[in-house]
């Protein structure tokens, strides 16, 4: 039947539907066959809180290479100069993204002129000023963006990612 517009809560719904099942299964895989009781597991992966840099290191529209949640997952911190979705800091303009294309895993390059991430593999591009929305391309998800926190000293911490990273079936390995 036609449904009412539920776009607003779509993210939450998918989380409950998808990740919940994943977590239940993850517990099963760790037990030996003779056991009958699964160990309790969290509903989501536990993201590390990693310091990626300090606001003083960021220059306007100059990408700073980082990695999160581990060294095998390259990413970038950007200060965009205007308040943007997912942005933190005084200006709400500091964002972090994975730089691995969610289509086929090629490394993205940053276009400073229009603040997009571009993939040389199959021409996908993502808008860093629009939450990593795919402007055009082959990925079936928008660019994974970091959940960032800045402490009193101006240290920038990543504490989560909002989409599955390419090349891993769990964001935290």
């Amino acid at each position, binding site marked *: *039947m*036609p*449904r009412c517009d539920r*776009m607003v809560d*779509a*993210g*939450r719904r*998918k*989380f409950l*539907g*998808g990740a919940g*099942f*994943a977590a239940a299964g*993850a517990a*099963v*895989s760790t037990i030996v066959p003779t056991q009958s009781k699964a160990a309790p597991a969290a509903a*989501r992966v536990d*993201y590390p809180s990693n310091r990626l840099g300090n606001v003083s290191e960021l220059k306007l529209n100059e990408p700073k290479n980082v990695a999160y949640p581990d060294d*095998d997952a390259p990413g970038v911190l950007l200060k965009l100069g205007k308040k943007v*979705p997912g942005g933190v800091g005084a200006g709400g303009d500091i964002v972090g993204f994975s730089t*691995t294309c969610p289509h*086929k*895993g*090629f*490394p993205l*390059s940053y*276009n400073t*002129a*229009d603040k997009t991430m571009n*993939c040389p593999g*199959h*021409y*996908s*591009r993502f*808008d860093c*000023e*629009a*939450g*990593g*929305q*795919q*402007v*055009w*391309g*082959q*990925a*079936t*998800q*928008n660019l994974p*963006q970091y959940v960032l926190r800045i402490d009193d000293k101006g240290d920038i911490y990543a504490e989560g*990612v909002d*989409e*599955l990273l390419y*090349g*891993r*079936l*769990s*964001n*935290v*390995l």
Partner: protein
Amino acid sequence: MAYKRQIDRLPIIPKDAKEFNVTCHYCIVGCGYKAYTWPANKQGGTAAGDNKFGTDLAKQQPAETDAWYAPSMYNIVSQNGKDVHIVIKPDKDCVVNSGLGSIRGARMAEMSYSQQRNTELQRLTDPMVWRYGQMQPTSWADALDLVARVTVAVINDMGEDGLFVSAFDHGGAGGGYENTWGTGKLYFGAMKVKNIRIHNRPAYNSEVHATRDMGVGELNNCYEDAELADTIVAVGTNALETQTNYFLNHWVPNLRGTSLDKKKAEFGSEPVEKGRIVIVDPRRTVTVNACEVEAGKENVMHLAINSGTDLSLFNAWMTYIADKGWVDKALIEASTTNFDAMKAANKTSLEDAAKITGLSVDEIRKSAEWIAQPKAGNARRRTMFAYEKGLIWGNDNYRTNGALVNVALATGNVGRPGGGCVRMGGHQEGYSRPSDAHVGRPAAYVDKLLMEGKGGIHHIWGCDHYKTTLNAFKFKQNYKKRTDMVKDAMMTASYGDRPAMVKAIVDAIKKGGLFAVDVDIVPTKIGEACHVWLPAATSGEANLTSMNGERRMRLTEKYMDPPGQAMPDSLIAARIANNMERVLREQGKNDVADKFKGFDWKTEEDAFMDGYHGHEKGGQFVTYERLRAMGTNGFQEPATDFKDGKIIGTKRLFADGKFGGKDGKAKFMETQWRGLQAAGKDDERKKFAFLINNGRANVIWQNAYLDQDNEFVMDRMPYPYIQMNPKDMDDLKLNAGDLVEVYNDNGSTQAMAYPTPTAKPKQTFMLFAYPTGVQGNVVSAGVNEFIIPNYKQTWGNIRKLSDAPEGARHLTFKSFDYTA
């Protein structure tokens, strides 16, 4: 904020997961996929021994890995009544896509019906009928009885011409050999229905009549030819967006020069270089940009012609090439007719063509050289010609198609490696029907007849005229009026009183009403006007065979249950036939009833064996079991043998110089330029300010029938975009994302303004067939002599409706073009 799934982990495919062959059910390319399923309470592990890939998944996998899948490739579905995990991922061993997934196909799992994860719950689960003033569920027996009784009543009254049909003729979802045969046997076998049309056009005709009339079937090469060509000529095809993995996996290697080894292996001492490309398109598309990125600007010629003037360009190419003597004289002599007459009739100077097309004389000459100037050592240049909707839905379809085939034929590029003159295709193909000769030529203009009040009942199979036809605004107004008459009449009888209900319907039909039956997988826009909806199963919910743009036939195996009571179209057609037979016998019309015999199919495989296996060329070699063994690579039609456990196919058509004419030859066609051919188009051009060019976008499949229920897509495309030159937007005081009205004398519609610096002033491009803004509303009723519509040459005015609505405020409006 852009839509994010907040999924940070996916279940792992266990080693013992079931595996199914899948061909993507969307576009013509037909990429190979594999579906993996396993019980809901199980999963694989990260250790190499615990997963399907035999890979340590606790490590980051590299680019292009086979051992990863996106959240869009995962779901939980029902299989034989049990919940199972499913992953549908691109198959790296399929020669079509080599593991690539497009933004459409790589969402197949997420676009499956899942009560468990709330995806595609829009799917129809029950037959639905108009009862007590709204659509209500009912049983198959009840719905089929109503459909059969009203259909028989209309035929009794008006003859078979009172039954109007709209039906898919293609492969993939909403089509396939089983289902075209099922519907074909019903309407062309049991009956001889004449008032029938195809899903995307208002009559029952070929989109490429001309090439067929010339004896050159339109899918005559193989995808490898795009890797082997010296030059690719792309006419009205935006392949990166609409035949994505064909472009990425077979065109790009040639443009990059990475297929040179293949060329050397194939052609020996013949000089070879990396490929060049000529793109004929009034619009600078992402395809043009990508070609320039890969091949370098010096190897890409974008001929941005005046919209609708392709024919003049092709005639000028033909004239110049013939004058230079760059034609294949031996082939013309041995295998063709009418060359001299064609050459004389089509004579067009570079200067005249330049005036008409808006190109320079140099551009036309240079492109002709790229097409046909012999290579070093006087070796014939290998040129592949590919065309699609820019030509097919463009001005003067028949002649323009013929004019392009003239050039390909004359230069010896049909049936040869690195050549071909092919349509790129929209859907996959999957046509198997009894003869349609009774339909006639030109075929009936079905939409027009419906609008004029003709016919009493309309059977609709996987079509949505409200979104995808021309003159859609006026069509919808008329159609609603006629079907509302029947709805109102149905309110006057008790639903359970079948004789009274049928009488009420038939009386309303006699007063000009129309009874409409919609067979589809989802509620459609035209379905809003219908009285019965019959729920169909789609690809993967039933076994389905189709072929792709290089005639590659595969079987998509059934991997999940259809929603609720949904059935494959082939079986719905059979059950309609069974019920019509029953009603006819009840009425004592046994001679007519006898024509409805032969529909005792229990499964879609029964329909396949009756249809493709029993009737199509080479079909005797093809069975489900054999196709299953051929996997995602299948074979290229037609089959010629079954040997050593394999179906033997045909790599290229016409490789032996024998063409499809009755004399075994191809016939050149006289194709003089005659301006904008369809009635009223030239006046429309003069009267309205903007060209409203139109077509597909990468992210959307067809009319968004499944995408409209997908958050990822609707987040990006809440409204259809209209690409506009920024200066034009300034003049109209428009900001990015503003809703605009596009209007002309045909009707009006809405779109979301998308600033596009590469768009020429006063030339826009609007996404077609979208549920939240139907471009067809402003397309005129004008057609060619064979009732082929002209969607592309549409002109209208534009005015602002409102600021960007909430759903469009978070969107990016940056350029689609990749930058290095």
